[in-house]
C-alpha cells in the first residue's frame, strides 16, 4: 500500500511540494525542453498511428489528419503520470536513504544532505527516469516478468513482495493450438468469412479472467501459484523490497530466466526500460560495476563455452577468462535509416554514428565477442570502408589474428620485427548500440598454453589469415547489398521478406494468400524500401533482437521456440506498445468484430467504451500446415523470406 503521506505527494501541486526540485522542475529550461521534446515525439507517434489505422480502414485519404481529441487526452494523462512518477521517485530517494541498492547506485553515502545531492547530481538521473521509467502498482498475483520473454525492462521493487519461479507455459497463455484442423483450413480457403478481422469472442473468456486491462498498465495474473509452478524446477524464491531484477537481461536484451509474480497485497515497482538501464549504467559507475559483476558471474561463462575455439577449456579456465574479460559499450540506442550521396558524406556519417571498436591494421591484442547489439565488419576501400559482414550477439572477432600471433611466438622466431606483429585485418564498428566483451590475447594465450589439447592442431599462419582471394571477390560483390542492409538496419531480420522486382508482376497472389489464412486481412504491405532490383516489403522480419517485445504489459507478444515473434490474441489488450516500438512499422493495430460481424468494444482506463484493438503482424503462418503462405503463393518465385546474414545466398537468388 502507498502510505498516505506518499499518496499526498503524488498529486500535482507545485505550491505544496516539499521538495524544491520537483516544484520547479518545469520552470527549468532543460526540463521544459525535455518534456516538450518527449511530448512532440509522442505526438508524432500517435499521429502516425492514427493515420495508419484510419488509412488502412479506407476511411480517409492519405492527407494530413487532425490529431484526434482522444490522443490529446492521452498525452495529458501521460504527462500527469510522468509527473507523478518523478515525485514518487524523489520521495523514495529522500525517505529511503538507507537503501543498499541506492547507495550502490549513487556510489555515495546518501545519509548526508540528500536534498543537495539531488539538486546537484540527480538531475541527469531524473532525466533518465523521466524518459525511461515509470512507477507501476500491481495487485497480488500480478505477473511482472515472464520466463523466456525478451527483457525490455528492469524492475526495482519499491514496496511489497514478489516471488521468482518457473511456471507452466499454460499459465502464461503460450499454448495456442499449433495446427488448425484440416476442415477448418478447407473452409477458410473455400468459404472465406465475409468479415475482416472476425474473432470467436468466446475464446477470450478464460483470458479475461486473468487479465487486468488498463492500457499500458495492464497485466496478467496467476491466481494459483502452487498449481502453476512447473514441477522439477527450483523452488520459488522470495524477493523483498529493494530488490532489483531483470537489469542484466534488460541490458543485453536477452530472455528472463524466471517468471516473477507479486505475492503481497500490492506491490509498487519502478519499471525501467532497457534504454534507461543502459543510460543509468553510463550515468553511474557503481551501478555499471554491479551489473558487470552480475553478468560476469551468471552469463559470461555460458557464452564463452559456446565458442568453438574454447570448447576444450574446463570450468575454472572459463571462469578465469570471465574474470579477466573487459566489458565495454559503444554507440547509442537510437538510429535512423540513411542514404549517402558520396564517399565523403558516407565516411563522416560512419565515423560519427558508428564508433570504432577495432581498427584495421592495429595490433591484435584481444579477441572480442558481441554481448548485445550489432557491429559492422569492414575493410578500407577507396576513400571509405567496404562492409564485409556484420556481427551479432554471440559472434566473435579476432581469434584468427590472435592465434596467429600466439603461434608466431611459439615458433620462437629469433627476431620479431614490427612486420611480424599480428594485426587486425578488418575494422569493427558499433551499429546502433553495441556491448562487447574483450579478452586480452595474453590471457587467452595463458589459458590455451595450459590446455594444449584445446589449441587447434593447425593454427592458421598469419599469411593465411585474410580470407582467400576468391572469397573476398564473392564478398565484395555482395557488399553493396550488405551496405544497404546495414545502413537501413535490416540486419535485424531473420525472415525478411524480399521481393525481386524483376520478377514480381504485382499479381497480389501473395497478399491474397496471406489474407486467406489471417482473418481476411493481409499481415504485410507489398510495398517498402527499394534498392536496385529488389524491395524489402513491410512485413515483420522476425528480428533477432526484437524491439517490439519491449514493454508488452501482458506478454502477449513473445518469441516462440522457432524464433518467430508471435502475438497471443487472447491476452493482447490493444495498448499499441508493440506497434509503437517496432522501428519498421510492421505491427498494425486493427479493430475486431465478433462472430456476427458486430464491432467488439472494451472499456478504456477512464471507463469509456472504445473499439477493442488487437495487434496483428506476420507470424510466419504459425499454425498453418503449409507455410509461409506468401512465399508459397508467388507463382514467379519473386518473394522469399530470407535471413539477411546469408547475404551471398540472397545475391544468388536476386541475380
Amino acid at each position: 500500500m502507498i502510505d498516505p503521506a506518499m499518496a499526498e505527494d503524488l498529486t500535482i501541486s507545485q505550491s505544496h511540494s516539499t521538495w524544491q526540485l520537483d516544484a520547479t522542475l518545469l520552470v527549468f529550461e532543460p526540463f521544459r525542453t525535455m518534456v516538450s521534446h518527449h511530448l512532440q515525439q509522442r505526438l508524432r507517434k500517435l499521429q502516425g498511428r492514427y493515420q495508419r489505422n484510419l488509412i488502412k480502414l479506407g476511411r480517409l485519404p492519405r492527407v494530413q489528419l487532425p490529431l484526434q481529441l482522444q490522443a490529446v487526452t492521452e498525452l495529458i494523462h501521460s504527462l500527469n503520470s510522468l509527473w507523478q512518477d518523478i515525485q514518487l521517485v524523489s520521495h523514495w530517494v529522500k525517505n529511503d536513504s538507507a537503501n543498499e541498492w541506492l547507495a550502490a547506485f549513487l556510489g555515495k553515502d546518501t545519509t548526508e544532505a540528500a536534498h543537495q545531492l539531488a539538486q546537484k547530481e540527480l538531475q541527469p538521473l531524473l532525466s533518465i527516469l523521466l524518459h525511461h521509467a515509470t512507477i507501476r502498482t500491481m495487485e497480488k498475483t500480478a505477473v511482472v516478468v515472464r520466463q523466456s520473454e525478451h527483457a525490455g525492462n528492469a524492475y526495482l521493487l519499491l514496496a511489497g513482495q514478489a516471488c521468482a519461479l518457473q511456471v507452466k507455459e499454460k499459465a502464461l497463455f503460450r499454448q495456442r493450438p499449433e495446427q488448425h484442423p484440416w476442415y477448418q483450413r478447407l473452409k477458410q480457403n473455400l468459404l472465406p468469412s465475409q468479415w475482416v478481422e472476425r474473432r470467436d469472442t468466446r475464446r477470450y473468456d478464460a483470458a479475461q479472467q486473468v487479465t487486468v486491462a488498463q492500457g499500458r498498465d495492464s497485466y496478467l495474473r496467476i491466481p494459483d501459484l502452487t498449481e502453476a509452478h512447473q514441477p522439477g524446477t527450483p523452488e520459488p524464491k522470495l524477493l523483498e523490497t529493494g530488490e532489483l531484477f531483470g537489469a542484466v537481461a534488460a541490458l543485453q536484451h536477452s530472455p528472463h530466466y524466471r517468471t516473477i509474480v507479486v505475492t503481497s497485497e500490492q506491490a509498487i515497482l519502478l519499471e525501467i526500460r532497457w534504454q534507461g538501464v543502459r543510460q543509468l549504467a553510463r550515468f553511474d559507475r557503481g551501478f555499471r560495476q554491479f551489473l558487470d559483476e552480475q553478468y560476469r558471474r551468471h552469463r559470461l561463462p555460458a557464452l564463452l563455452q559456446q565458442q568453438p575455439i574454447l570448447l576444450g577449456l574446463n570450468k575454472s579456465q572459463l571462469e578465469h577468462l570471465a574474470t579477466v574479460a573487459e566489458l565495454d559499450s559503444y554507440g547509442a540506442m537510437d538510429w535512423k535509416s540513411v542514404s549517402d550521396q558520396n564517399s565523403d558524406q558516407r565516411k563522416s556519417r560512419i565515423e560519427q554514428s558508428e564508433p570504432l571498436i577495432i581498427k584495421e591494421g592495429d595490433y591484435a591484442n584481444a579477441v572480442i565477442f558481441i554481448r548485445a547489439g550489432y557491429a559492422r565488419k569492414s575493410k578500407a576501400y577507396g576513400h571509405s570502408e567496404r562492409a564485409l559482414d556484420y556481427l551479432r550477439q554471440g559472434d566473435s572477432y579476432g581469434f584468427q589474428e590472435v592465434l596467429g600471433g600466439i603461434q608466431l611466438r611459439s615458433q620462437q622466431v629469433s627476431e620479431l620485427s614490427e612486420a611480424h606483429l599480428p594485426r587486425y585485418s578488418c575494422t569493427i564498428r558499433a551499429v546502433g548500440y553495441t556491448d562487447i566483451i574483450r579478452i586480452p590475447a595474453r590471457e587467452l594465450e595463458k589459458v590455451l598454453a595450459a590446455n594444449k589439447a584445446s589449441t587447434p592442431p593447425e593454427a592458421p599462419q598469419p599469411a593465411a589469415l585474410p580470407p582467400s582471394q576468391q572469397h573476398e571477390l564473392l564478398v565484395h560483390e555482395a557488399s553493396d547489398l550488405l551496405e544497404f542492409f546495414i545502413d537501413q538496419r535490416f540486419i535485424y531480420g531473420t525472415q525478411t521478406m524480399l521481393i525481386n522486382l524483376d520478377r514480381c508482376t504485382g499479381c497480389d497472389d501473395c497478399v491474397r494468400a496471406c489474407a486467406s489464412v489471417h482473418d481476411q486481412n493481409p499481415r504485410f504491405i507489398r510495398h517498402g524500401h527499394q534498392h536496385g532490383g529488389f524491395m524489402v516489403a513491410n512485413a515483420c522480419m522476425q528480428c533477432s533482437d526484437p524491439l517490439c517485445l519491449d514493454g508488452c504489459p501482458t506478454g502477449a507478444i513473445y518469441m516462440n521456440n522457432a524464433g518467430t515473434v508471435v502475438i497471443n490474441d487472447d491476452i493482447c489488450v490493444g495498448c499499441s506498445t508493440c506497434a509503437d516500438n517496432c522501428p519498421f512499422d510492421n505491427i498494425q493495430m486493427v479493430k475486431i468484430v465478433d462472430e456476427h460481424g458486430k464491432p467488439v468494444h472494451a472499456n478504456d482506463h477512464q471507463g469509456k467504451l472504445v473499439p477493442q484493438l488487437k495487434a496483428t503482424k506476420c507470424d510466419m503462418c504459425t499454425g498453418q500446415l503449409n507455410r509461409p503462405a506468401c512465399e508459397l503463393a508467388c507463382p514467379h518465385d519473386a518473394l522469399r523470406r530470407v535471413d539477411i546474414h546469408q547475404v551471398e545466398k540472397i545475391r544468388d537468388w536476386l541475380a
Partner: protein
Amino acid sequence: MNSYVVRRRLVYLLVLGLLLASTLILLSLSNLSMPSEVYCTGWGLLAVMGLLVSYHWRKKLLFLNFGGVRYWLRLHILFGLYGVALFFIHIDFSWPKGLFNQLIATVFLLEVGSGMVGLYLSRTMPPRMTWLGERLLYEKMPEYYQQLRQQAEDLALQAAAEHHTDTLVKFYNRNLQSFLLGAANFWPHVFNSGQVRSRWALKFEGLQRYLVEDELPVVTELRILVFRKIELDKQYAIQGLLRRWLFLHIPLAYALFIFVLAHVMVIHSFSGV
C-alpha cells in the same frame, strides 16, 4: 540471361521433347486405326486440360501441402505447350469441320495465345518497371494522381498570383488539366513509346517563349511533375496490362472446358463407343 535460366529452359525443352517423343512412339507402337487414335489423343488432351485448370485450384487451396505455386506454374507452362502439340495431333494438323468443332478450336487457340502473351508479359514487363523508380501499389495510384494534380494546380495558381499573368493558368487549363486527371496513353506506354515525353517536352519549350524570366522556375517544376506523371502512367499501363490479360485467360479456360465436355458427350452419343 543468367546461366540458371538458360539451364532451366533447356530442361524444359528436354522434358517437353521426351513427353512428345514418348506420345508419338506410343501412338505408332499401338498401331491404332485413325478414329481410335483421335479418340486416345482426345482423352489425353482432356486430362492435360484438367491438369492445367488444377493450377488455378492449387492457388486457391494453398493450405494443402503440395509444393509452392512456382513449381505448379512451371508444370502449367510445360503441359500447356504439350497440350498444344497434342491438340494438333488430335486435329491431324487440319482445320476441323463443323461449326462447333471450329468454335472449340478457335477458343483453344485463343486460350493458348492469351497464355503465351501472359507469359511473355510476366517475364518482360517487371524488369521494365524496375527502372521506373519506386514500385507503387496499383490500388493506390489514383491517390498519387490526385496528389500530382493538386501540386500542379497550386503551382499554376501561385505563379499567376505572383506574376499577375495568366499565361501559365491558361496553359494549365488547356493542356495539363485533362492530362493530369488520371491515367493516359495506355498503349503508347505498353509499347514503350517515347512519343509522349517528347510531345510534352515540345509543349513546354513552346510555352517558354511567352513567359517572363521569373516564371521559368515554375515551368521547370511543372515539367518535373508532368514527367513524374508520365512515369506513373507507364507503371499504371504495365501493371494494368499484367492484370487484364488474366481476365481473358481464365474465363476462356472455363468456357473451353465446358465446350470440350459437350464435345466429349456429343462424340460419345454419336460414335456409339
